[in-house]
């Protein structure tokens, strides 16, 4: 009798468990519970304090930062020599103006004379020299050491003047010295990761890892009338849904790096200003071109013909971005982007015919590898459906991102989807992804004409020559490239309408918080 009773009640408990677990799934999915305590409400004095919700930061030494949150923190405490605007042009910052020599090898920067570090010392040319020497020092081993290997010499040619001498001309050098890591530190800083002494618009107040980081206005900032805020609080959240909920309930004022679906839920929210900026971030579908089956260019052409780009854009990006044209040169680079070359329309019979000609009259079976992050799994599923109509049958294999990029699997597989971040100029993609000896040449593409064009575009100081080379490259890639770029995605975010003058940048971490001010009520 006793066992009978016990077994029955165990069953009931189990049923209850099932019910609650299913309920938990639903609740978990439908709401985001902020996992950080809310800001202590300070009533009206809170005005002028911008609270930014973001992922926790790990690195604080500018030479090693990488994520958006790390960069936005560093960008408020330190300054760049020159900055990149939301329109992707170069703007002065600690360097007031600059001149480039005829041969493109010597850059002379004239610095501002009224900037001081947070400890009161005057900012001078030596600080710039020290910072860049540190960034290219092999012993420091910053990710920038290869980027700056082309620099022959850096010299303080005057108290407020720095001269960079290059080995080879580099038309993109101004973008390079505005690299995310190139924030100017005080010369001879002993603890660059923890003393937080910069010239920037905000000064460090407190940093409690995993919780929050607080900075206050630098009253002696060298740009007049900036910063516009009294304080900025960076509050760390691990979960994007929780960030969105915190924004909706007024616990934070700014959220960036939103996924399209979360952005849609905020778009019509009263009191919020949606932020959207076009970038050159993209997912590339690439086919290894140095071994079968990809060494037959007809297969790539068949994939192109079987793809419906507009449908992918609507389903996967939900309209937040731009349709791609199978080259990494996107519409964000308005001066280089071209729509001259004709991208073939979707044509299933033509795709089938190409496959048959290539020796696959009954269709072909392929494995499509993709990391499990972002829109990539969805892109893979949509491609599977579209390609199936043309007899291209793919098995989707979603791997954790660490597995996909680990052991260089992504450089080995035949068919894969890889995400590439936005850069301020397109040459980066050509040199690291598509030239014969590119370090991340995942499609093992090697085309001598392409290499010549890429090298020309990357070294000429003649802008028209570069524009022509890039146009040519786009034609070439559409005709015989090993890649498909179905879309470029936008960066999405939202800010409370209590604030004004915030401009999000394609790399959201580089957005300038010093311009932000309280909105006129």
């Amino acid at each position, binding site marked *: 009798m006793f066992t009978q009773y016990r077994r*029955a009640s165990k069953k009931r408990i189990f049923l209850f468990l099932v*019910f609650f677990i299913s309920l938990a799934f639903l609740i978990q*999915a439908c709401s985001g519970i902020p996992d950080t305590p809310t800001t202590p409400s300070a009533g009206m004095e809170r005005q002028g304090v911008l609270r930014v919700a973001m992922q926790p930061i790990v690195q604080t030494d500018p030479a090693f930062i990488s994520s958006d949150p790390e960069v936005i923190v560093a960008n408020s405490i330190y300054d760049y020599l020159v900055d990149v605007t939301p329109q992707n042009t170069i703007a002065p910052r600690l360097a007031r103006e600059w001149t480039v020599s005829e041969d493109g090898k010597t850059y002379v920067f004239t610095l501002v004379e009224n900037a001081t570090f947070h400890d009161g010392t005057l900012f001078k040319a030596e600080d710039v020299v020290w910072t860049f020497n540190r960034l290219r020092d092999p012993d420091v081993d910053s990710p920038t050491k290869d980027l700056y290997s082309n620099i022959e010499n850096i010299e303080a040619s005057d108290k407020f003047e720095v001269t960079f001498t290059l080995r080879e001309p580099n038309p993109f050098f101004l973008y390079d010295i505005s690299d995310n890591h190139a924030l100017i530190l005080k010369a001879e800083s002993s603890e660059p990761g923890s003393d937080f002494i910069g010239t920037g618009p905000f000064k460090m107040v407190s940093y409690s890892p995993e919780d929050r980081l607080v900075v206050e206005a630098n009253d002696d900032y060298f740009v007049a009338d900036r910063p516009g805020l009294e304080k900025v609080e960076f509050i760390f959240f691990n979960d994007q849904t929780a960030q969105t909920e915190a924004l909706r309930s007024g616990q934070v004022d700014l959220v960036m790096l939103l996924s399209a679906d979360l952005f849609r839920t905020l778009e019509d929210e009263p009191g919020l200003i949606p932020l959207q900026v076009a970038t050159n971030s993209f997912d590339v579908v690439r086919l290894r071109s140095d071994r079968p089956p990809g060494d037959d260019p007809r297969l790539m052409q068949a994939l192109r013909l079987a793809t419906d780009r507009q449908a992918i854009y609507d389903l996967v990006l939900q309209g937040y971005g731009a349709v791609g044209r199978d080259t990494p040169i996107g519409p964000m680079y308005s001066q280089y982007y071209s729509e001259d070359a004709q991208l073939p329309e979707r044509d299933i019979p033509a795709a089938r015919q190409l496959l048959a000609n290539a020796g696959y009259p009954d269709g072909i079976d392929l494995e499509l590898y993709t990391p499990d992050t972002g829109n990539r799994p969805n892109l893979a599923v*949509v491609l599977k459906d579209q390609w199936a109509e043309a007899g291209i049958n793919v098995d989707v294999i979603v791997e954790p991102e660490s597995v996909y990029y680990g052991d260089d699997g992504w450089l080995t597989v035949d068919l894969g989807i890889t995400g590439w971040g936005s850069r301020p100029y397109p040459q980066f993609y050509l040199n690291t992804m598509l030239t014969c000896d590119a370090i991340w040449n995942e499609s093992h593409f090697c085309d001598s004409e392409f290499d010549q064009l890429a090298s020309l575009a990357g070294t000429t100081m003649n802008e028209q020559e570069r524009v022509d080379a890039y146009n040519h490259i786009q034609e070439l890639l559409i005709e015989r490239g090993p890649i498909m770029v179905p879309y470029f995605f936008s960066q999405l975010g939202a800010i409370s309408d209590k604030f004004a003058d915030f401009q999000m940048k394609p790399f959201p971490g580089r957005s300038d918080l010093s311009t932000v001010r309280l909105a006129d009520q």
Partner: protein
Amino acid sequence: MTTVPKTTNNARGVAPSLWRRLSLLLRKLYARPISAIGTTITLLFILAAILGPLIAPYGENEIIASEARQPPSPVHWFGTDNLGRDVFSRVILGAREILVLAGVGTLLAVVFGTIFGLLAGYSGGWLDEGIMRTFDSLLALPALLLALLLLGTVGQSQYSVLIVIVIVYIPIVARVVRSVVLAVKPQGFVEAARLTGESQPRILFREIMPFVYPTLSVESAVRFSYAIFLIGSLGFLRVGVQPPSPNWGLMVKEARPFASLVPWALFFPAAAISLVVIGVNLMADGLKRIMS
């Protein structure tokens, strides 16, 4: 053709046909409302698993780009998901994979578990100790953790999920069977069979086994529902399953980021898991009452 009398004499030797036994069992299950509900739910899901492709109006990965993210309607009973796939079709088509995996997994676990349980319980001694302590150490780990560990080592595919279910549930079944054997073993008829020189397999399967059946059938049903839950959980963790598989757990995971925009894509697969687990459990409950 030998003539078989219409009314079979069940008194000795001649077993009633499987069909008759099943219909008898069903009639008993339908005698009580609770177990009738459970049985109906279970049968409906089994029907969906068998006839899935005939019932489902769309394919499992058929994308209708123009009809993405639509709420439930007469055209799409459960709405469409963020990629424009019919949720009803995917739930129906997902039934086969999950029920077959859970069913075959449970069956294998029950067969092997019974053999181990019979052996351990009947022989006792070092064999009993050896088998049961090994199983105890497996049972010390939570099922999901053990499953993740195993899938990490044997690689991820549907077959690995099957192997995992078998390995995770063998110890539990063996334990239950062993306890029944221990209760039956000291009884006189077993001793008598041994003294008349019956072989050990014969004693195990002919003399002892009939006493194990009732417990075993209930245990199988319970294991079956746990297995469904385990497969769903593994799918939710995207382990051992690849998109665009209509695994209900994976569907819940994929719909989660869109929960506030496309809640139906999350609700229906989640509901399917709950419903089938509850249905099988209610049926198992009824089964137990009939057996005891």
